[in-house]
């Protein structure tokens, strides 16, 4: 391990809460990958005789209206949450970065053409636009990912464009050009790596918001469709039993809150860890 990595790691570990955040996120990833290991029952297994049971040793977080174990359903729900959160943001980053690079680097008409389209997308409220896409193309996990990605592309394009414009007149960019670099080298060796800090932060925060949007869409019945469990659609069913089974509505709500909070915190720490200029202290 290089000297530098050790320093970075040490700095990260000094922050005790980091362990909690990393732990929760790792747990979510693990649950998404191997839900059958973490969960105690299959997500659709019904125990009609135990409907709407409060939390107990048998059902850690109680049961829903069909007697399904809420804890197990939450665990099985993480797969779709992680898939939508990471998938939509990854897609948005992959499309948004090249658009932002082109717009910021070449400027002029190309910039105007790209950015006016992004502005048009940005002028719609996020959830409304996602709803519109789902309503048009139908509700499915893939469409949820695509619609959230679509809504997010302009945010990344705009962020990257701004960074490129700010970095273009840095001396090391001029120095790289003086050293004989062509446009591609200049973009991918001199400019993009220096713009990565804010992109990573925005992406991590984006995952948090994507989870929220997915939950919102599923809550409205337009996101992930039963029988696939997602925290959003669990919340939707749970609201009918809020007075006689409050633990039912609480569990997915707390999970959404936790996941969003953890990804937000992770975004902040990643920013510090990734920026070499912040490593100096």
């Amino acid at each position, binding site marked *: 391990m290089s000297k530098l990595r050790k320093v970075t790691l040490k700095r990260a570990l000094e922050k005790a809460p980091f362990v909690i955040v990393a732990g929760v996120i790792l747990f979510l990833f693990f649950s998404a990958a191997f839900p059958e290991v973490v969960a105690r029952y299959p997500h659709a297994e019904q125990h009609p005789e135990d409907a709407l049971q409060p939390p107990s040793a048998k059902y850690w977080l109680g049961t829903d209206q069909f007697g399904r174990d809420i804890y197990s359903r939450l665990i099985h729900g993480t797969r779709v949450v992680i898939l939508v959160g990471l998938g939509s943001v990854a897609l948005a980053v992959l499309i948004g970065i090249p658009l932002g690079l082109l717009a910021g680097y070449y400027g002029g008409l190309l910039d105007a053409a790209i950015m006016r389209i992004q502005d048009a997308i940005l002028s719609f409220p996020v959830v409304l636009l996602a709803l519109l896409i789902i309503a048009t193309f139908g509700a499915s996990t893939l469409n949820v990912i695509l619609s959230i990605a679509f809504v997010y592309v302009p945010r990344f394009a705009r962020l990257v464009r701004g960074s490129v414009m700010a970095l273009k007149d840095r001396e090391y960019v*001029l120095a790289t050009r003086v050293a004989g670099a062509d446009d591609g080298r200049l973009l991918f*060796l001199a400019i993009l790596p220096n713009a*990565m800090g804010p992109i990573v932060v925005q992406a991590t925060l984006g995952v948090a918001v994507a989870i929220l949007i997915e939950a919102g869409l599923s809550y409205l019945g337009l996101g992930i469709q039963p029988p696939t469990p997602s925290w959003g659609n669990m919340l939707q069913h749970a609201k009918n039993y809020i007075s006689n089974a409050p633990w039912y509505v609480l569990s997915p709500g707390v999970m959404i809150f936790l996941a969003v909070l953890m990804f937000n915190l992770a975004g902040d720490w990643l920013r510090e860890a990734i920026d070499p200029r912040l490593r100096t202290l």
Partner: protein
Amino acid sequence: MSTLLQIEDLKTQFPTNKGIVRAVDGVSFSVEAGETLGVVGESGCGKSVTMLSVMRLIPNPLLPQLGGRIAGGHIWFEGQDLLALAEPEMRKIRGNKIAMIFQDPMTSLNPTMRIGRQLTESIMLHRGFNPQAAKEEALRLLELVEIPSAAERLDDYPYQFSGGMRQRVMIAIALAGSPQLLIADEPTTALDVTIQAQILDLLAGLQAELGMAIILISHNLGVVAGLSNRIAVMYAGKLIELAPADALFARPAHPYTRALLNAVPSLGASRKERLANIPGAPPDLIEPPAGCRFHPRCDCAQERCRLQEPPLRVIGEGHSVACFTDF
């Protein structure tokens, strides 16, 4: 010696709302292979713009809003007119045959790339080395610019280097393509005095070893004095005096050059003595004064200096000046 770079009647202009700024207005000079040419003049006299023109970085392709164009002239380098080359051809010259280092080493290195990689990128690009050979060459270059324990420092980031060390790294990167011409644009201005001397010694040593020509730009006559074979003095976009270094210091012919030399503080001077300065300010380059551009600030200006522009005339061995008066 053969002529490496020949600049002929170079005119570089920047359009602005108020009019055209003639930053470089008809400058001609040449650089011989292996020599050091010092270029001095105050801020805004066109030193850097001349060099950016040689590099064909005007207009800056990344910042077209800054505008600027090379309005006329020729820049001959090894028999080719650089101004006539297509951009891909020019890229093969930049960093390869002509390299450049800048004033501020703190901002001229890519902060997110390890030093070794910044070197090997240039080496592989210009010399087609494989990664292993490029790494060895990078190490050799770092040792050449006298960076202590170079092997360990290849994996360091720029922020881990001091200002003087960074300028050494910049020089190593500039040497990556074995250039025939190194343009050093105020290479020591951002460094403190002891480090300045080290960097200048390093440049002199490298030149003796590698035989490249150097154009050393500075507003500091002391920096230029020790290193240059010949010195060009620029004022308001014009070349006003060109002479061998010793002749320039012994017999400065242009009133501006003499005023500049006069303004250099000397260690022996008493404290009560005021520093000599040149009254007035450099002229507006949108509407420069008619005749000689220095006449409003010149204490020996005559009537014809106001009307007629003095041509560059030869007054001695390799010594020419743009002034009517003989001194």
